[in-house]
């Protein structure tokens, strides 16, 4: 029988990053993926003949260290340090464009305040940056290395200087709305700047607990790029290092058996009954799937189990894909190559959220749109295009449950919203598809259809992500590790959880 050093569950980007690091260190690694190709939520999938799109449609803050360590550029990952312009759409065509540290389409006051604001936020982001690629130690420090990690965090913040440090402390848990109101006047600018703090979360501008951390997390990457090329490069890098990747291979459960008198994860059993042995199992699946469906509560402790149970895992983002017979035209917009946000003011986000909070779909959804086929021509037939949008808010637990007609009605609402900005769009649609969080849950095996596996919020961050005793990538079950978005630092196409997990395993 084959025996591996590590079996990695899931060939999403974190699973592949972890696999590549472990294999490079000489481990015999097997990656098991349910889908018929790697990539997870970042995998391109054909949603209509000839039209493809990944659910996760952008790489905005990928760490340079992982690119360098794994030689991802030599494996074809096209990196760029310049992010796409972000465009706050206006129905009348008076768009607000954020690019290269400057903003256009706003009054002089906002335009002048913007660079200073961004510079300060960037200083905060830079102070935190080293810690996304580090294991955050347990609060009860037991060794010098852990103490030094905390010491470095404190030092980094202190080195911001007195004023910046005070400001950082002040805004850490400030609702995004307050922060934006303090600094800017233009409604579109304010809602666009909120966006990166709340996308993918059960949050809106007035929610406390979120504003800054996710925003700074997203501001602290090095590279932008394209999900398809990232996944291909990671797949190639992992394979080249010797990791074996088996797709179309669903793991039924983690084999938990007695070893040295205690229960330990010692391999996996596949859906077809095949058993594969390993010294450890590293799961890139979300924590609830990993602990409840794969490992089973019988091998876990009771309070730990219930901390995993109470994780907030309900997704609130639906994914819209449009197959278009040409490039869409947005009123007053010359180029659609950026990241376009439909959220004309912060209350538009807030009201859309209010409905979802009580289990309804937003009547006037807000969204982020990209045209991925502009960057990757393989995604659509020549001259034709794909529109990809993250649409908020669509609660996983919709009142009365999701069905085809509710999905269809939300899809039409989303297209109506786009049509207000791109009036000709309906005539260009060859095919449309909306994936609700429930669809994401069933198609990609992620609890709640949540992008980040579990909410990215202060109470589920750092050494509390997903919960203490599992926040250092090892778990209370010997031989079982986590390496997915449910771990520090969190979600998006970032790879840090996979990197950090490998580091802990190899320590």
């Amino acid at each position, binding site marked *: 029988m084959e025996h591996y050093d590590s079996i990695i569950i899931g060939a999403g980007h974190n699973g592949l990053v972890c696999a590549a690091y472990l294999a490079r260190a000489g481990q015999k690694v097997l990656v098991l993926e349910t889908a018929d190709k790697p990539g997870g939520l970042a995998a391109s999938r054909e949603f209509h003949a000839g039209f493809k799109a990944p659910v996760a449609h952008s790489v905005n803050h990928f760490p340079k260290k992982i690119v360098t360590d794994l030689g991802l550029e030599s494996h074809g990952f096209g990196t760029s340090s310049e992010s796409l312009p972000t465009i706050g759409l206006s129905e009348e065509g008076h768009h607000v464009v954020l690019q290269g540290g400057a903003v256009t389409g706003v009054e002089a006051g906002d335009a002048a305040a913007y660079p200073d604001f961004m510079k300060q936020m960037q200083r905060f982001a830079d102070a935190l940056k080293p810690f996304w690629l580090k294991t955050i130690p347990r609060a009860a420090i037991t060794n010098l290395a852990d103490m030094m990690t905390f010491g470095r965090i404190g030092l980094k913040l202190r080195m911001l200087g007195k004023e910046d440090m005070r400001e950082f402390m002040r805004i850490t848990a400030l609702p995004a709305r307050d922060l934006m109101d303090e600094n800017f006047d233009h409604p579109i600018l304010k809602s666009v700047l909120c966006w990166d703090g709340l996308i993918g979360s059960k949050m809106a501008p007035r929610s406390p607990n979120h504003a800054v951390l996710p925003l700074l997390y997203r501001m602290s990457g090095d590279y932008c790029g394209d999900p398809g090329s990232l996944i291909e490069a990671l797949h190639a890098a992992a394979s080249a290092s010797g990791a074996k990747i088996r797709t179309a291979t669903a793991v039924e459960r983690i084999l938990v058996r*007695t070893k040295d*008198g*205690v*229960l330990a994860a010692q391999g996996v059993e596949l859906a077809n009954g095949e058993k594969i042995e390993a010294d450890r199992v590293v799961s890139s699946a979300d924590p609830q799937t990993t602990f*409840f469906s794969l490992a*089973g*509560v*019988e*091998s*876990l*402790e*009771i*309070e*730990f*189990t*219930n901390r995993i*149970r109470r994780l907030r895992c309900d997704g609130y983002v639906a994914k819209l894909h449009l197959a278009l017979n040409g490039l869409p035209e947005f009123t007053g917009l010359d180029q659609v190559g950026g990241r376009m946000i439909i959220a004309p003011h912060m209350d538009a986000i807030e009201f859309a959220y209010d409905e979802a909070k009580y289990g309804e779909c937003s009547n006037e959804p807000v969204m982020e749109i990209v045209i991925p086929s502009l960057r990757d021509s393989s995604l659509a037939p020549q001259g034709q295009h794909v529109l990809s949008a993250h649409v908020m808010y669509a609660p996983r637990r919709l009142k009365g449950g999701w069905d085809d007609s509710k999905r269809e009605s939300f899809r039409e609402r989303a297209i109506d919203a786009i049509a207000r900005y791109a009036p000709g769009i309906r005539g260009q649609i060859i095919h449309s598809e909306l994936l609700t969080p429930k669809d994401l849950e069933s198609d990609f095996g992620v609890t709640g259809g949540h992008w980040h596996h579990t909410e990215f919020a202060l109470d589920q961050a750092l050494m509390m992500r997903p919960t203490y005793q599992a926040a250092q990538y090892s778990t*209370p079950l010997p031989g079982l590790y986590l390496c997915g978005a449910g771990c520090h630092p969190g979600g998006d196409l970032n790879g840090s959880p996979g990197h950090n997990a490998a580091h802990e395993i190899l320590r």
Partner: protein
Amino acid sequence: MNTAEKYADERLMRSHFHPREAAWNVRDAWASWNGYKFAECYYDAEYEYFCVRNSCATYDICPMQKYYVQGRDAEAMLNRMVTRDISKLPLDRVTYVVWCTDQGRMVDDGTIFKLADDRFMLTCGSPCGAWLKMSAFGFSDVTVTDMSDHIAALSLQGPTSCAVLKKMGLHGIDSAKPFDIRHFPFHGDTLMVSRTGFTGDLGYELWVNPELALQMWDELYAAGADYNIQPFGEEATNMARLEAGFIMPGMEFNEALKTIHFEHDQTPFELNLGWLVDFNKPHFNGRNALLKEKERGPKYTLTRLDIEGNKPAEHSYLYSNKRCTREIGYVTSAMWSPAVKANIALAMVKTDCLEGEIWAEIYYEKELRQYNKAARCSVMKKPFWAPARARATPPPDY
């Protein structure tokens, strides 16, 4: 305004045996237990204690919490929760268990009755529905039902208890070994009898449909009339259980889920219950923490003390010297034991001080004047009191 109505929800509930108990309770000495009106004593605590030790007496365990844990996963769920291995518990047997937090701190102790392969009854002193619900989460086939109000239960304890039950018509009860469960037809229903109790003596617990509670009481008391059957309350129970060396929540241990201060709760090892922790079982809640505790040795150990003199060492601090300057522990329960004829106590003593001298600083009152004295304590290796009849099958007849 009708104040009786206004406070209706605040009033203590009445046990299924209350009509009979109220008649016996000539002192109207009521306390409460889990929301039930509960007798401290009926006539005189010492008299009731002597009934338990010399004839027989009944203790109302209706207020005790009872849960049915049922389903295909019931055994797995309980086995993960408690420190003892219950997978080998035979049908119609009872076992004493403790359960702990993830950190190995004791949540509570209780008993598990195996009523069928997929049906267990768990009993414990205070409500633990929330903990059971947490423990059951993630198992596909297990339900927890709070049966506390739906089973009438009465404990019959004392040397003549078996004789009374035989006289009541429970044929074959004398063949029940300690921790055995027997079922008897009873007026179209079933009377379940377990050879269990909280006095350290021969004794049984009777479990019946509440509708038959008073009928069972009457038949039991008719059979026991010649044996001077008598109800006993909280105070007598506390005397008997201390002689037996049984622990009491709020005295020997503080339930972990109700403990605020760090390590003001206890581990089973501290309570001298290491024998209940089965490390042959590959997993149970708190296993890791308890293994560490076992290797390190508990900071305190619950210890039986025989104390010189006759002044009960209630609430005493313990010292390693007669001058009482080096504190090494505290007394949890103490009494002058009539059965043992000794001044006994249970105490938490720092484990590394068990071998040395132990002195109790005893405070006592004489006609409003306060006195204190240092009394030498010796550690009792054996139980204070464990009569052979408590274990004999069949028990001696009377």
